[in-house]
């Protein structure tokens, strides 16, 4: 059999080419190979993603940031909270590449150790909003009727209150016990409406499919259908949005810490360091740029990844 001229990969349609001599008149017969396995949405998305350089750039950055967040001691041997006022705003020297901040702490070590707070708030909040949003959105979309009316209004109410404002309000009440988990909970409680709206829309478009009717006729309970058949098929837009919002929540945490209502000074965080760089910004702007740059790069990698994931999971957008 000669090599098939496969220029583009069509999922689920591996083509069969007959030998030339079997079909003298036509030259070749091109027909879908019925025996090829159907490609799932996820495999298709993966094949589409891995061909894009942007995916690999953001994936490498995200893996790097997560490595730094989990094992900061691999990247810096300096203690970020060991500060010596005699080297306040000191210039870079061997072993201290980024110099020292106002308190005389090593800036490089603080940038490295600051990753943990940002990444954990981002990840925890995203998990929180996804659980809340998917539960509320899918219940509203699937059960419909008054359930939908009530839940959609509740979503509207939370949507109308600005995220950052609500977070500042609640965080300012907790003057003690400000921890990563508390910040994540507060952000999640006010951040879920977007995911809920998207889930509701996706569930509405999925729930009238034949396989749902088939599952109903097999006697599967309503929650069973929702959990096993509808939610898995409605997850694609949710995952794309959640990836982007991970970056958004990292910025929100940094903003809270910057305003002095986020993580306390005892926790090494980029937002807090940027806030403290404020006082010496005219003489030492580099103190702003290192944590600011690290924060920007982290958020950028999640936003780029979200873009790639959305393109891969949304075939309509892909044709452009």
């Amino acid at each position, binding site marked *: 059999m000669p090599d098939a001229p496969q220029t583009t990969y069509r999922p689920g349609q591996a083509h069969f080419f007959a030998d030339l001599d079997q079909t003298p008149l036509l030259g070749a017969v091109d027909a879908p190979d019925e025996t090829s396995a159907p490609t799932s949405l996820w495999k298709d998305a993966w094949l589409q993603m891995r061909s894009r350089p942007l995916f690999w750039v953001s994936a490498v950055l995200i893996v790097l940031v997560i490595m730094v967040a989990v094992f900061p001691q691999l990247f810096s041997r300096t203690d970020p909270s060991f500060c010596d006022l005699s080297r306040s705003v000191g210039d870079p020297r061997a072993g201290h590449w980024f110099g020292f901040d106002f308190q005389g702490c090593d800036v490089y070590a603080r940038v490295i150790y600051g990753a943990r707070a940002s990444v954990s708030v981002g990840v925890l909040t995203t998990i929180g909003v996804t659980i809340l949003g998917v539960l509320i959105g899918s219940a509203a979309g699937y059960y419909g009727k008054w359930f939908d009316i009530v839940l959609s*209004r*509740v979503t*509207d*109410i*939370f949507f*109308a*209150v*600005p995220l*950052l*404002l*609500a977070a*500042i*309000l*609640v965080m*300012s*009440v907790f003057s003690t016990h400000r921890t990563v988990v508390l910040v994540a909970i507060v952000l999640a409680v006010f951040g879920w409406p977007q995911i809920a709206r998207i889930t509701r829309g996706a569930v509405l478009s999925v729930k009238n499919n034949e396989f749902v009717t088939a599952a109903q006729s097999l006697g599967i309970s309503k929650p069973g259908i929702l959990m096993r058949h509808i939610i898995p098929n409605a997850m694609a837009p949710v995952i794309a949005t959640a990836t982007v919002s991970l*970056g958004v929540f990292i*910025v929100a945490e*940094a*903003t809270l810490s*910057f*305003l002095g*209502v986020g993580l306390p000074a005892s926790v090494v965080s980029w937002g807090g360091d*940027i806030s403290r*760089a*404020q006082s010496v*910004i*005219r003489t030492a*702007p580099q103190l*702003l*740029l290192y944590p*600011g740059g690290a*924060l*920007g*790069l982290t*958020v*950028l990698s999640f*936003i*780029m990844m979200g873009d790639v994931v959305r393109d891969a999971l949304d075939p309509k957008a892909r044709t*452009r």
Partner: protein
Amino acid sequence: MAWYAARRLLQMIPVFIGATLLIYAMVFLLPADPIAALGGDRGLPPAVADQLRAQYHLNQPFIVQYGFYLKGLLTGNLGTSFTQRPVADMLAQAFPTTLKLASMTLVIEAVAGIGVGLWAGIRKGGIFDATFLVISLILIAVPIFVIGFAGQVLFGVKLGWVPPTVGANVNFKTLLLPAFVLATASFAYILRLTRTTVVENRNADHVRTATAKGLKPGRVISVHVLRNSLIPVVTYLGTDVGALLGGAVVTEGIFNIPGVGNLLFTAIKRHEAPTIVSVTVFLVMVYLISNLIVDLLYAVLDPRIRYA
């Protein structure tokens, strides 16, 4: 259309009541006693504390307190702060500043975003397109306070083009830098939105027809491509108006602008519960109304959309 607007206004009522209840509960329910926190370490004299409690109905059940607040709100009374200043006065003082800043920001982000997005969409895949796609990603990723500080140091201190902070003299020149800083992220979003829809519309049938019947390229772009591409952009601008009028807490803080965002943040720091509630409720109202206006604008931009 009027019918649709009326129905939307009716739908806003439960959302408005729910949002005010949520905000009221967050402010008055969460801290154990807002009055006790007022006095600091020494505490208020019991007589003063009792009088304040009575004035704000804090000695009554929560739902009764909220009822009194809602009643005041419906009669146009936004309440008074713990320092006995009417909240409406404070808002009236701060809002014009925020309005100026918001309108400047809106003009900058809309003109620059639509302009650059249109050009990038027409020349898709070119060097201009690629450059601005990268720039827009960076502008979205870098938090506003980093951009704000960098701009303040560069243009305000090092180059001295504009005053680094605003303070009491609010005018076009002092607000220019804050407006640009505030516009950066939205500029990037508008650019990307415009570019995507322009690319989509550029190959649409009606555009090909317009070109084929011999219209000048400028007219094809401005009438047939741009007008159809503006619908998602207008949606975005509408939500952004709501956010901008809410006062940019961070930007107003960095540049020391006496706007709504600053008023709110100061009130939060001082635990001024009545001020916080009323200003936030005002913001929610602005947000809901700007959303309604956007929905009504759709019909102007896209005649296919009919409101029944």
